[in-house]
């Protein structure tokens, strides 16, 4: 049980031009599951490793429960980590793997046995305690890795993409289990992933990073509905939000050859270049002559819904720039390839971003 605070934490790798993590200010609340998400190279794993003590902190401080830990060795920080590839000791069986840290800490044997057994029950590993890692399936190894962390009853859990080596189906099932487990144990958890769906479904709050900088840290709902910049808007949500270049005109925004009416609030910005953000579900198929015209490139059928990938066209059916748009439709109403369709924008659903900086315009 603890809070974790990053204060201006910075990490520079030698011989690189930019910082891997740049002046990170982030607070993880007690008992919270905070997800660090972002594309490869954004600094999320480096941040996690700085907290673990596996990575040097060049500037700033990292506090656990108010105390700076950057000079403490990993084992003195009272944290436990689940590695992406699990990092199980190949020569030890499941019980020994789970008990290793406790043995190192000098915990009495009976207590170790008790804790290992308790964790094995929670994780459904009781039958496998004698097995070696190579005799386990991927999902079982993942649970052993989690068991190793749980058994230590640490103040903070660190998880480095623990689901990425699992089959897609197992991943979906396991993420709900991990979320439920974290809730039950109520241990402060910092969770790293590159998968924004995982971030959205698991995190109490989600911190989006890019190129070493924190972009936004908020609840999943807020990130989705109220992104602070175009990067967050385009990163959160799958399929990605449509980010279309346009110009503000009286009464609306011009995208390609169409002017989409905007209710109010942008009159002062007439003539400004903006990026208009439209989520696939805010677009609906409309009758000809209204809305944004586009020709269908492909239709992705996902069973419960379908996504239309289309190219914007002008009045004369000439392809326009910006060209690509994705819209969500009912699978039964999906248009065919090559068809000319029109998209209507749901009232009030468009977001605007500065075309140069990407910052959100309100």
């Amino acid at each position, binding site marked *: 049980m603890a809070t974790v605070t990053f204060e201006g934490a910075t990490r520079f790798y030698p011989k690189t031009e930019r910082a891997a993590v740049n002046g990170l200010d982030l607070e993880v609340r007690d008992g919270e599951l905070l997800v660090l998400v972002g594309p490869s190279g954004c600094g999320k794993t480096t941040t996690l490793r700085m907290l673990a003590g596996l990575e040097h902190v060049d500037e700033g401080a990292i506090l656990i429960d108010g105390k700076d830990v950057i000079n403490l060795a*990993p084992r003195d920080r009272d944290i436990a980590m689940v590695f992406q590839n699990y990092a199980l*000791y*190949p020569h030890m069986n499941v019980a020994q793997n789970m008990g290793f840290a406790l043995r*190192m800490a000098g915990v009495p044997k009976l207590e170790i046995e008790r804790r290992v057994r308790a964790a094995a029950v929670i994780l459904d590993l009781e039958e496998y305690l004698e097995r070696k890692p190579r005799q386990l399936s991927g999902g079982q190894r993942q649970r052993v890795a989690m068991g190793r962390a749980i058994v230590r009853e640490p103040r903070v859990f660190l998880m480095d993409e623990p689901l990425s080596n699992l089959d897609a189906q197992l991943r979906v099932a396991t993420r709900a289990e991990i979320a439920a487990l974290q809730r039950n144990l109520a241990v402060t958890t910092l969770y790293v992933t590159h998968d924004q769906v995982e971030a959205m479904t698991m995190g109490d709050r989600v911190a989006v990073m890019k190129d070493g900088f924190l972009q936004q840290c908020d609840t999943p709902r807020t990130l989705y509905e109220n992104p602070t910049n175009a990067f967050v808007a385009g990163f959160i949500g799958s399929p990605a939000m449509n980010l279309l270049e346009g110009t503000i005109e009286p009464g609306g925004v011009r995208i390609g050859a169409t002017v989409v009416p905007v209710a109010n609030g942008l009159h002062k910005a007439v003539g400004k270049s903006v990026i208009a953000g439209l989520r696939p579900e805010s677009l609906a198929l409309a009758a000809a002559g209204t809305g944004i015209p586009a020709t269908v490139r492909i239709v992705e059928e996902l069973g419960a819904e379908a996504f239309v990938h289309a190219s914007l066209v002008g009045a004369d059916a000439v392809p326009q720039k910006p060209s690509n748009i994705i819209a969500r439709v009912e699978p039964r109403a999906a248009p065919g390839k090559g068809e000319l369709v029109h998209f209507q924008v749901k009232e009030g659903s468009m977001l605007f971003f500065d075309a140069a900086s990407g910052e959100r315009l309100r």
Partner: protein
Amino acid sequence: MRPRGSGYLFVAPYVVLLIAVGIYPVGYAINLALTTFTAHFAGLKNFVNVFHNPEFLPALENVAAFLAIWLTALIVLVVGLSLMLHSMDKRISAAFRFVLYLPAALAGSASVMLWLFMLQPGKSPWSFVLRWFGYHSLGDSLAPAHLPVVFALIAFWSGAGSWIVVMYGALATIPEEVLESARLDGAGAWRTAIRVKLPLIKKWIAYMVIGAFAAGSQLFVEPELISEATGSVVNQTWAPNQLAIYLSFRLDNFNYAAAISIDLLVAALIIAAVILLRTGLFETGH
């Protein structure tokens, strides 16, 4: 489906060599060991006679003493040094590994000559150490009781470097994540070495012991060269292999010599088999 033909073609030259300089000589030796000088079948008579040869048992004792010291030193020091190097900063350990490897690059005979020089009080830069031990001449340094230690020293000096490189390579196969996990689990450098690294290089240690036993039991260059260089100080039949050579080329008794060679071969094979079975060296499935 699989290009079978080319596979055999690749292996063929090796198989030819294996037969020519490996299997055939062994077969020939077995034949010699089981026959008399006049090529009559003699059963195990040669083996029995060799056993009764007054120089055989002492030679066996000599080599056994040597092996005890050498193998222990190899296992403890090579593994220990490799573990230490592995915990150090990469660049420093690379420099050390290079230095430790240098002696191994020297030819065996050159090493022996070097050591002869080092062991001679009066000529050696370590004279003061030798004198402190009470040795005032080469004969003192090379007293019979000292020989197993001396040969072990020479063999270690010229052989350890290669094994350290191999053992270090074995340590390098341990995934970095596992070692980081150990750090997080609270294991310091010592405990990580003992509880995590050591168990994971068991196979390589077994491999080293098998190779070292085979080479050590057939010790020849060191005692023979010292014997030649010092005349009477070390006799020519100190090690079983020397005895075999002596019997072959001095006494023309090829049969006895073959018997000794086969003895050595069988001993090495037995040790190898025991180690293989106990450590599962060839088991895959990691």
